[in-house]
């Protein structure tokens, strides 16, 4: 790791030298006063020069190392730096930078510990610090888990502040005016006489200074950018067709190609006959790669045609060929030796249920695909002394490791150029596009190669969400929920993912019971047990990960118990709630939706609440049961992220999350037959289209003590809120996604 950091530093210095007297500022020192001291001990000697700000004589460049796949994280990161650096949008450029251990993401840690997010005890905070320190040592540069904002919030403002004060010091030395009499704005230092020195003009001087560190961060009341509506940096490009995505990247002399790998994911290709394909006009090469072939041609369309013309002999899948067998394995995993965790056990569930009239429920969540609008792709050029890869990836340092394993180059010779991504939803945590492209480019050294997955191939190779089931047993008394014994069995998407990285998960997989075990309800007797289903088809992180199934299981079961108790769904959730920030979110959604007001016939209203990624989110869905099916009329959604960095983007991500959650719960699943996914394009797996989209009303609260991200938390409550609303309108309980297996939608 030390080596990688050294390389990154050198490349920055080289970069700045090339830009004529540039200077790279890096600032972050772990200095959060409320942290457990363990974190500081591990930090010793670690955070020295972690560059986010590069000023040359010509330009200010902000390094925004979190991958932007549409969530707007480049703008968010830039705004945090710019707030303290006193530069405006339009006065700087951004770069995703080269992969570096310096860009480790400590905010990922909080999801992996067996402490509820509402638990701020010493033990809980200690464990989070230790996990955070481990991630820091590993140098894990990861975009995911709705962690980019919490990871960046202090760090990047500190980077901006350090750069600003260092530039002021340079201005002071040049002008003889004390630093205390200097001001900054619009990318320049202002002197008392009214003149100014542009940052770019100070770059060469500042490069000779030790960066000023430990600069106090400004009070939020003085902010001019953060918390205000922003105009995203990419909005004009994305509205004019001028944004360059990974799939658009072009090099002179580049061959266009595609890939075909065994649709029984992970199984080998026994053999193939490419005679017909190789005879096609415009086909340049058919190359073997791991588990498949790459076809190179003059254009992508020809490559697609040629890949179809090859006869393949695919080996059988390592997992069950038929979907029923997958469900059978899940259903038989509720046994002691598959117990993964029992992190919640309040009261005594066994005693409370003994002899009581109990309600028993079984819920199911299927495999679902990611399928961002931009199919996965990559461009690679391999020569004997360096490798360049252009693609979008959420873990670029792991991508570098994968590339090195194929080509034999060392990390210093590998340049990974992260690109804007046309969506991800977790898809770009996997490596198939990169490894296929590099395997082919390594056989064609010197020739740049672009590989584009066809939509069908993207579906065939997509590592889906986990499949899972829950079994609940509960009891009610005197109009109240008194006991809930919740068992959840899913495959472990974390172990599946880490296995492909050659790593194992130390301890239980928190994602099996995410959205369930940590919910801030004081049900007197409440137990949540996780059962790890043995690996079936490979799975990965799908937007909101475990909580996308766990939230559905836990909230719907609670809703059933509340109805059995004869209580009001909102009132009983509020009565059980033991966390003030969450309570206010539920109250807000109740007010917004005018909960309790009369609805006409054939109409229904459902509420759901799920705390995930540290963010409490409540949603109310209103539906009408029409002659042609269920119509979703309106959705109200409230969430508390502590502080909203950009209200417009917050609103956009909240609505997008609701639509993602509803659309897949209604319409989408992946099923296997003969070892292959049966869904191959959008007509069999489309999420939601515009005609089904309800009106959505959003409210953001800022009562939480920590700053959190909003990419994923709106998803888990969407499915249960809809299922609960359908029950209210029709009396029909739907306990399996996708709901359209059981009811029609307009």
């Amino acid at each position, binding site marked *: 790791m030390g080596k990688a950091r050294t390389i990154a530093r050198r490349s920055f210095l080289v970069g700045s030298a090339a830009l004529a007297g540039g200077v790279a500022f890096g600032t972050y020192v772990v200095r959060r006063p409320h942290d457990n001291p363990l974190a500081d001990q591990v930090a010793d000697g670690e955070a020295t020069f972690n560059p986010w700000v590069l000023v040359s004589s010509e330009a200010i460049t902000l390094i925004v190392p979190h991958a932007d796949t*549409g969530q707007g994280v480049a703008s968010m990161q830039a705004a945090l730096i710019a707030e303290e650096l006193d530069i405006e949008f339009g006065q700087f450029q951004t770069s995703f930078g080269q992969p570096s251990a310096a860009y480790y993401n400590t905010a990922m840690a909080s999801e992996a510990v067996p402490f509820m997010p509402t638990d701020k005890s010493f033990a809980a905070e200690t464990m989070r610090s230790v996990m955070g320190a481990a991630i820091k040592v590993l140098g894990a540069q990861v975009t995911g888990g709705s962690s980019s904002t919490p990871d960046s919030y202090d760090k990047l403002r500190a980077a901006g502040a350090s750069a600003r004060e260092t530039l002021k010091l340079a201005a002071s030395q040049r002008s003889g005016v004390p630093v205390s009499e200097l001001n900054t704005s619009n990318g320049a230092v202002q002197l008392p006489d009214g003149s100014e020195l542009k940052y770019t003009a100070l770059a060469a001087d500042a490069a000779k200074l030790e960066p000023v560190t430990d600069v106090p961060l400004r009070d939020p009341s003085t902010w001019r950018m953060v918390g205000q509506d922003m105009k995203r940096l990419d909005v004009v490009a*994305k*509205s004019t067709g001028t944004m360059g995505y990974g799939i658009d990247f072009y090099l002179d002399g580049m061959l266009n190609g595609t890939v075909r790998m065994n649709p029984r994911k992970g199984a080998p290709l026994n053999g193939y006959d490419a005679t017909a394909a190789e005879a096609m006009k415009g086909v340049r090469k058919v190359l073997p790669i791991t588990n498949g072939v790459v076809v190179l041609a003059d254009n992508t*369309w020809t490559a697609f045609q040629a890949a179809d013309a090859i006869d393949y002999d695919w080996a059988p899948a390592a997992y069950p060929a038929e979907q029923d067998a997958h469900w059978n394995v899940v259903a038989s995993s509720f046994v002691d030796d598959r117990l993964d965790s029992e992190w919640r056990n309040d009261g005594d569930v066994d005693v409370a249920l003994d002899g009581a009239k109990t309600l028993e429920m079984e819920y199911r969540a299927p495999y679902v695909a990611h399928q961002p609008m931009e199919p996965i792709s990559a461009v690679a050029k391999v020569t004997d002394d360096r490798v360049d890869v252009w693609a979008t990836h959420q873990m670029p340092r792991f991508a570098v490791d994968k590339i090195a394993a194929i080509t034999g180059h060392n990390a210093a010779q590998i340049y990974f150029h992260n690109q804007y991504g*046309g969506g991800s939803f977790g898809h770009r945590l996997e490596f198939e596009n990169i490894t296929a492209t590099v395997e082919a480019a390594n056989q064609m050294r010197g020739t740049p190669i672009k590989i584009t997955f066809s939509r069908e191939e993207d579906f065939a190779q997509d590592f889906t969400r986990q499949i899972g089931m829950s079994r609940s047993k509960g009891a009610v008394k005197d109009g109240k929920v008194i006991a809930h014994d919740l068992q959840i069995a899913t495959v472990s998407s974390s172990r599946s993912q880490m296995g492909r990285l050659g790593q194992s998960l130390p301890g239980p997989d928190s994602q099996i019971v995410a959205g369930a075990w940590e919910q801030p309800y004081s049900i007197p007797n409440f137990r949540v047990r996780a059962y790890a289903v043995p690996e079936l088809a490979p799975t990965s992180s799908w937007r909101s990960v475990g909580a996308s199934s766990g939230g559905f299981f836990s909230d719907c079961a609670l809703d059933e118990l509340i109805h059995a108790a004869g209580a009001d769904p909102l009132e009983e959730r509020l009565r059980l709630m033991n966390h003030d920030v969450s309570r206010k979110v539920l109250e807000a959604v109740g007010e917004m939706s005018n909960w309790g007001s009369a609805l006409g016939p054939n109409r229904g209203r459902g509420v759901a609440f799920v705390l995930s990624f540290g963010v409490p989110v409540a949603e109310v869905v209103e539906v009408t049961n029409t002659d042609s099916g269920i119509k979703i009329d309106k959705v109200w959604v409230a969430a508390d992220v502590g502080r909203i960095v950009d209200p417009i983007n917050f609103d956009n991500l909240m609505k997008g999350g609701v*639509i993602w959650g509803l659309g897949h719960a209604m319409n989408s699943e992946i099923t296997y037959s003969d070892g292959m996914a049966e869904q191959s394009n959008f007509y069999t797996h489309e999420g939601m289209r515009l005609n089904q989209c309800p009106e959505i009303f959003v409210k953001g609260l800022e009562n939480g003590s920590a700053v959190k991200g909003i990419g994923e938390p709106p998803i888990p409550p969407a499915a249960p809120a809809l299922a609960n609303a359908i029950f209210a309108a029709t009396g029909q309980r739907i306990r399996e996604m996708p709901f359209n297996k059981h009811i029609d939608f307009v």
Partner: protein
Amino acid sequence: MKITVNGRSHDVDAPAEMPLLWVLRDELQITGVKYGCGIAQCGACTVHVDGEAVRSCQLAIGDLEGDVTTIEGLGTPDALHFIQEAWIEHQVAQCGYCQSGQMMQAASLLSENPAPSDEDIDDAMSGNLCRCGTYPRIRAAVKSAAAKLEL
């Protein structure tokens, strides 16, 4: 063969059955038009042929009759089309990958129907898939663009 894209004539040496989408992207490096599904399920490849919205993944180059307009020809960052202005004003895009097709579809809708009802918008725009969930903003942007047309 000769084709006209965004007012410029190009000589194209491609098989007659090659879809316009891939001629634009791989032969002419006009990449604002996007590949999404290849089977007219998503609308990311929508362009105009003589002003009409067409899924370019389904139009063989040999069958092309008329002038092609892509998102780059609708307007540019320095000279925005009013649909693009509305898209920017409402900050519609998240990942943005589908938005070229969405805007081409919306421009075609408004040229035929300058005052679309909610139902008209749903009918015209539901063939264009967005996976980020920008539909509420797409609706708002189409409406505000239509409102500007009235002025």
